[in-house]
């Protein structure tokens, strides 16, 4: 998919998708003959308009050049992560109808102007070559791929890095927490370990037991954590969807993320258990059982 823009700063008005911050008012004349329009759910709610109603739309705030349309339907705008903080007060209409509203009288070229042209290439692999060709043939026209930039410069890649950095800090804090707990837990079992060692159980066996116990606890903790995240997923999404009046999904606990968390948490848990126990195992038996 491809997008050609006459100017980089062009507004987000793309082919048939038109964001009109215009006056929408209910009117009542000859609805059957009127051109059709689709309104976003947010706009329909704000203007209290239903399918079948007639609305008047003008590109100018003073209502100049206003035209009437019949509301053919209400649509839910495609969630756009870049614009989720703004209310989607939008309408979609046929391009000739839009041009009829926005055209400048006396300027014939204004009825032939669009801000962007969406292009679907027969061979998506040719996207870069196509962009180069468009730029060379039409100076002033900017061609831009609709795919996410691969150089890590798009906002989501930046947010991903930010969340990753926060996650790393959390993991470091959790590891310190876990180590402190394991050290305390090992300390608690100092005497038991001493007695077990006194009756002849090898250091290696005790270490294996600690390892198995750490593995079980870490796995259980990681699974519990994933379940908590999965349980909170719906709540978080509902809150933000309510807050921003959007259907955008903010949190999604995928199998990959769950496995990543488990893969990180289990070895860390086991390691913390081993480090905690190692402080006991390296001591001599007498010091362990001494009170």
């Amino acid at each position, binding site marked *: 998919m491809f997008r050609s823009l*006459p*100017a*980089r*700063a*062009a*507004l987000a008005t793309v082919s048939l998708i038109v964001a009109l*911050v215009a006056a929408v008012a209910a009117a009542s004349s000859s609805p059957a003959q009127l051109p059709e329009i689709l309104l976003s759910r947010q706009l329909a709610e704000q203007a209290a308009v239903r399918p079948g109603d007639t609305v008047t739309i003008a590109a*100018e*705030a003073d209502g100049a050049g206003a035209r009437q349309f019949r509301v053919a339907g209400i649509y839910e705008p495609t969630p756009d992560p870049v614009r*989720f*903080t*703004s209310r989607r007060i939008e309408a979609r209409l046929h391009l000739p109808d839009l041009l009829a509203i926005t055209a400048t009288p006396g300027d014939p*070229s204004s009825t*032939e*102007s*669009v*801000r962007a042209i969406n292009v679907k290439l027969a061979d998506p692999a040719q996207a870069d070559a196509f962009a180069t060709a468009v730029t060379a043939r*039409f*100076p*002033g026209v*900017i061609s831009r791929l609709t795919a996410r930039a691969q150089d*890590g*410069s*798009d*906002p989501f890649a*930046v*947010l991903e*890095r*930010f969340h990753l*950095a*926060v996650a790393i*800090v*959390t993991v*470091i*804090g*959790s590891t*310190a*927490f876990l*180590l*402190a*707990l394991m*050290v*305390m*837990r090992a*300390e*608690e079992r100092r005497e038991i370990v001493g007695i077990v060692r006194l009756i002849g159980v090898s250091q290696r066996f005790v270490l294996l037991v600690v390892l198995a116990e750490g593995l079980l606890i870490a796995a259980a903790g990681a699974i519990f954590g994933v379940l908590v995240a999965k349980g909170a997923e719906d709540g*978080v999404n509902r809150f*933000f969807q309510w*807050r921003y009046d959007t259907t955008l999904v903010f949190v999604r606990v995928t199998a990959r993320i769950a496995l990543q968390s488990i893969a990180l948490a289990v070895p860390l848990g086991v390691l913390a258990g081993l480090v905690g126990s190692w*402080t006991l195992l390296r001591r001599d038996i007498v010091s362990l059982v001494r009170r």
Partner: protein
Amino acid sequence: MSAWSLAWRTVTHNPARACLAIGGVAVIGALLFNMLLLSRGLLLSFRDLLDTAGYDVRVLANEGSPIHRVPLAGAPSLAEEIGRLPSVRRVALIRTDSAVAMPPGRDGDAVIVTLIGSTERQLGGAWDIVKGATLPDEVRPGEPVPLVVSTKLAARQRLEPGAPLRIRVNLGGGASVLPALDCRVVGIGTFTFESADDYSVATTMQGFAAARGAPKGEDEADLVLVASSPEAGPEAAGKAIAALRPDVRVYSNAQVVEQFNARAFSYFRQISTVLSTITLAFAFLLVATLLTMSVNQRLGEVAALRALGFPRRRIAANLLCESALLVGVGGLAALPLGGVLAIVLDRILRAMPGVPERLHFFVFEMDMVLLHAALLTATGILAALYPIWLAARLPIAATLRKEIVS
């Protein structure tokens, strides 16, 4: 022995455990500190950016908003009218568009730039000259259009004051292609609102109009910047402008910041609230668990102290001091750690496209340090409650007996 001394001895008795606990609190506290800085950082930084330009009122067309601006018709006459108001000290017109800048004969070096037209020769703070001169007051007919280019563009296109540069404006929505305009670089400056992925070029309003194919000038502006007189202030100046021209929108810098706060910045504010809550809960769990385990390990010791006549209040004070030591030292360590972390996270977020290079997501504020301290103190107290309750309700005789038998 005071409760503090006893708590100190308990904590230092097991240094490894204490270090790990303090380390955990420090890392979590650093994250909390960062989230507090993030909650207001953008606002403070944005406010600072707006204020550095020296103008405190913005006048826009009624149809637009501070984010999506619509050109304002009849801008020169509007500026004149506004300039005559007693509450106004200075007025400037601003016009922006997208353009392509290319050094003559080096079309391969062409880059997209933000072209700014202004009635001001130099917008102190918005762009500061580092080399060459400011924009001239007047340009004689036939002379090339004067430009001030950003240091980044100058470096990329190897431009020096006096260098020729061709500018071609991309008219939004237009299918026609304007011819490139011959210009001359008069100065190189730093642009406050320039983002990492952007290049800025400033010129006069006449130069801007010429670049847009209207050599006789245009009567539109995207924005009218107004500096209120110190006696009147931005609110009074804003009211006077709104009364003068009800067909325009007037925003003080504070109102612009408020609008951005409600829309564009809300995501980071909410993220910071969510993460602050999580980090506080985490710190609470960390300290509460450590103290509870510590009390469980020392039940005999606590019972013995009680048997010796230590009142419950003293035991509670001891545990509270222990919590305060862990949280206090960890919280103090969190501040420098958080500072370093804020620099790293700020660098990550500022890589976002369209973010002015001088805008920061994390801004140090003394209030946030105090809030950080207050939140950690409350967490420390809350975390100590359960272990205190455990220690206070301990049956002395039964515990001592159990301790001896075991």
